């Protein structure tokens, strides 16, 4: 799935200059991506970290429910969107996610599918789907904070 997506993003370079790269991505690749996910979901056993349980998330909070690592202040996040290196950092963070978690998050946020469609494609319950999206957001937020916003990368290039 990620290979398909990466190929898609690389293929999008041929459309440089058009404002509708995203539209093109969604239109042409929605089915390809979904086919890839279906195939992957059939062939790959669900990774431990893709499961519904939230035990892995417990470590991110103290026993009384406070953030173990409090979200920091991000300097000019909107400017990051103008930097290619930011998207490279984002891609690395996406690749660090469990496979199905990354699939669910990409379908939700890049392709704009609703959770009902995503659950159906991945063959999981709605509540599991919400947990996976939550896990993806927690992980990506922390990863970007670590590797971009608080690492000195932001605004350095």
């Amino acid at each position, binding site marked *: 799935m990620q290979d398909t997506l990466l190929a898609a993003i690389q293929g999008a*370079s041929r459309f*440089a200059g058009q404002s509708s790269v995203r539209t093109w991505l969604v239109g042409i690749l929605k089915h390809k991506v979904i086919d890839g996910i279906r195939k992957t979901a059939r062939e790959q056993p669900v990774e431990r970290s893709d499961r519904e349980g939230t035990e892995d998330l417990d470590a991110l909070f103290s026993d009384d*429910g406070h953030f173990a690592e409090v*979200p920091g202040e991000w300097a000019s996040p909107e400017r990051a969107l*103008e930097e290619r290196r930011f998207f490279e950092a984002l891609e690395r963070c996406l690749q660090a996610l469990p496979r199905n978690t990354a699939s669910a998050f990409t379908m939700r946020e890049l392709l704009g599918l609703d959770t009902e469609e995503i659950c159906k494609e991945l063959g999981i319950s709605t509540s599991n789907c919400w947990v996976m*999206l939550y896990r993806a957001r927690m992980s990506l937020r922390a990863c970007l904070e670590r590797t971009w916003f608080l690492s000195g990368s932001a605004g350095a290039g």
Partner: protein
Amino acid sequence: MAFRLSCKEASKLISDGMDRRLSVAERITLRLHVGICDACTRFTSQVQFLRRALKAFPGPDDPEAR
């Protein structure tokens, strides 16, 4: 649901709110928590930023990405 949320419960609701419509009770308890919690206020804007970032994903030669 408890009247007072922990950051752990609040962050799950903040995420859920991006994928489903929260109940009135959920929205009220969440607003009460986020209103007094800097960490969850930042968490909210950061996950909303993540959504904008995914939508803005450029191609490698996209001239808008520098």
